[in-house]
């Protein structure tokens, strides 16, 4: 346990499922401002707080101005900060990305929204050839403190090109920090940290979690971020649920699924630990491996097609580092190696509680303990 940092000692975060607002009100202490807050509102507040704290922070993209973004993540920012700070661009993702590079070169901290995962692909060259490489090209003389916000992944019944899990493309590219929050609290803290980072960050926002709620005190989160007392999230995984029999390793949209699987397993008498990776790059080998060494078994859960994916990388890292602690091969529950399905078929594709539990059942329990 000593290998687990103070993050693990922090209170286990509330499940991501929508909370009962009345419960939130009754449980909140009179002096606390804790309320049920959506993931979307936490992101919106993080953007507003970052823009209020630093006039070089800019927000731009498609429909992010008066409309407030198609998911309303930028709601109210143009009205509050003016059209010079939060504004719509022509409909051209490479243009958005390339302009952000130049602005970051010249003293700004741009945050850009790609609207949907698959709509970010026209900007791919700018991301891979410049966002990721320009600091290295110039030996760190040019830093690119910019954030690429991407509403990503599926589970929302979206049409094609609106549900891709594109994290592996970015995670494969040296120079990019890649984050995928799964909780309302992390949505706030990780976006603030991403904006404050001197390195470019790809910030993946699980679309299906936008409307999930958690009881948090946004004012308290703001205070702890700004006074530096909030634990750092970049490069740090977190134990989302403690357990002893096997470790479920998940990130982003798969975390609530993993949590639900762990809850269901508990009813069957099996204790599953859930690790929320949340920082895909840099990856926290220490926290992940400490858990797997304790439990001896692991399943990696991700929506992305599994072949050559972040999930595949996690499996490889765990096998390399924890081989002598393992009672069974590390398994994966990922999307199939197919294009993202049409809405009526997506439930077959997405990792489900049943598929996770079936996979856990196959972890050679009869041989081990």
């Amino acid at each position: 346990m000593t290998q687990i940092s103070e993050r693990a000692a922090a209170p286990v975060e509330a499940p991501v499922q929508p909370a009962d607002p009345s419960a939130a009100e009754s449980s909140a202490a009179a002096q606390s401002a804790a309320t049920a807050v959506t993931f979307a509102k936490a992101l919106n507040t993080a953007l507003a707080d970052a823009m209020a704290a630093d006039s070089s922070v800019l927000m731009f993209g498609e429909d992010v101005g008066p409309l407030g973004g198609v998911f309303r993540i930028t709601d109210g920012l143009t009205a509050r900060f003016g059209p010079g700070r939060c504004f719509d661009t022509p409909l051209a993702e490479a243009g958005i990305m390339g302009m952000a590079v130049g602005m970051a070169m010249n003293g700004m901290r741009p945050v850009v929204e790609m609207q949907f995962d698959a709509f970010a692909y026209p900007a791919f060259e700018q991301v891979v050839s410049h966002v990721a490489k320009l600091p290295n090209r110039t030996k760190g003389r040019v830093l690119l403190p910019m954030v690429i916000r991407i509403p990503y992944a599926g589970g929302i019944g979206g049409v094609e090109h609106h549900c891709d899990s594109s994290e592996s493309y970015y995670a494969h590219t040296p120079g990019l920090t890649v984050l995928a929050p799964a909780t309302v609290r992390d949505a706030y803290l990780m976006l603030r940290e991403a904006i404050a980072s001197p390195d470019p960050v790809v910030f993946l926002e699980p679309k299906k979690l936008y409307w999930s709620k958690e009881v948090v005190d946004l004012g308290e989160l703001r205070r702890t971020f700004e006074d530096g007392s909030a634990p750092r999230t970049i490069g740090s995984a977190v134990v989302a649920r403690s357990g002893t029999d096997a470790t479920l390793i998940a990130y982003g949209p798969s975390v609530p699924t993993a949590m639900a699987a762990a809850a269901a397993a508990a009813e069957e008498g099996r204790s599953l630990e859930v690790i929320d990776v949340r920082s895909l790059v840099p990856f926290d080998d220490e926290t992940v491996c400490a858990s797997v060494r304790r439990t001896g078994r692991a399943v990696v859960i991700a929506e992305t097609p599994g072949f050559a994916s972040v999930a595949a990388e996690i499996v490889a890292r765990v096998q390399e580092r924890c081989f002598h602690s393992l009672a069974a091969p590390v398994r994966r529950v990922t999307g199939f190696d197919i294009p993202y399905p049409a809405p009526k078929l997506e439930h077959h594709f997405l990792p489900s509680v049943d598929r996770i539990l079936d996979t856990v059942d196959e972890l050679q329990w009869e041989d081990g303990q």
Partner: protein
Amino acid sequence: MTIPTNSDSTRTEGGVDTQLLPSPVPVQLIDHHGEAHSDARYALPDPRALLAGYARLISGRRINDQANALVRQGRLAVYPSSHGQEACQVSAALVLQSQDWLFPTYRDTVAVITRGVDPLEVFTLLRGDWHSGYDPYELHVAPQATPLATQLLHAVGVAHAAKLRGEDTVVLALCGDGATSEGDFHEALNFAAVFHVPVVFFVQNNEYAISVPLKNQSVAPSLAHKAIGYGMPGERVDGNDLAALLSVLGAAVDHARSGGGPALIEAHTYRMQAHTNADDATRYRPAEDVDKWIPKDPISRLRTYLRGLSLLDDAVEEQFAADAEALAASIRAGLNADVEVDPQELFAHVYTQKTAQLREQADLLRDELSREAVQP
């Protein structure tokens, strides 16, 4: 180039603002016989400025020749020469003030050196020590771009940031004729026009994108005609006429500086040599085509003109040649010296702080090298 006054839109009730269109033929102030011609819109630069520019042309040509020689000697991996395009290179640097930014491509080494960047730091790229060797902030010169047209968007972003802060900064972004086919060229011009930012897009149309002639890139009336599609002024200029280039580019820079927005300038020039030393131009163009451009050389016409004004004589020419030779000698000496490249630097700049994974990999390489060092 006539400047539109309406910064919001160039669409008017009466139809399209045709004043955005470029001249029917490229602006030329000194022809290839060295004779000056007056132009209603563009003034001939002061002869003293042209003499100073001539000195830079001589240096630029010498840099091109020297770099080619260093490739043959194995000191540079490759060199994309701007031989024949030196007037574009020199003018791009000379029209800018110190607070302005230059966004060059791989073929714009002479422009970068003319701007004042240490040649040895410029050649870091081509001798293979690192992907870029100079500090972009020192003289406001972006790293030389290798992908086509991507840097034009960065130029727009730098200008946009400067505009938001109310700074007096103009950005001059270079690209070639082939790059105008790229999507990023379109997006950069459109963004620059919509956000009305001070960028001058300067296309050196040297007629070839490696082996592909311009007629296979575009059938637009000219590349400068594309400007009107974005609502910005376009202009065409003789790319081997330093006088016309200084005047036309200078007007566009002044226009951008005064809040007039972006402009697109197309210089008609010619790539006298192969794409790089690794290319064989005889496979796609006959020598006679190249020969046709020899009389249009940017140096010979300005030499004739300045000699006609008695500003240039043998003594001054000898001085310019000696200065250029001294520069070439310093480049030779610098590139003939072996430079130690620290392999640990491979991991140092990927992120501002090495990740745990990069620390592991840096240790692995350090360990490998230390074991190699003790082995015979």
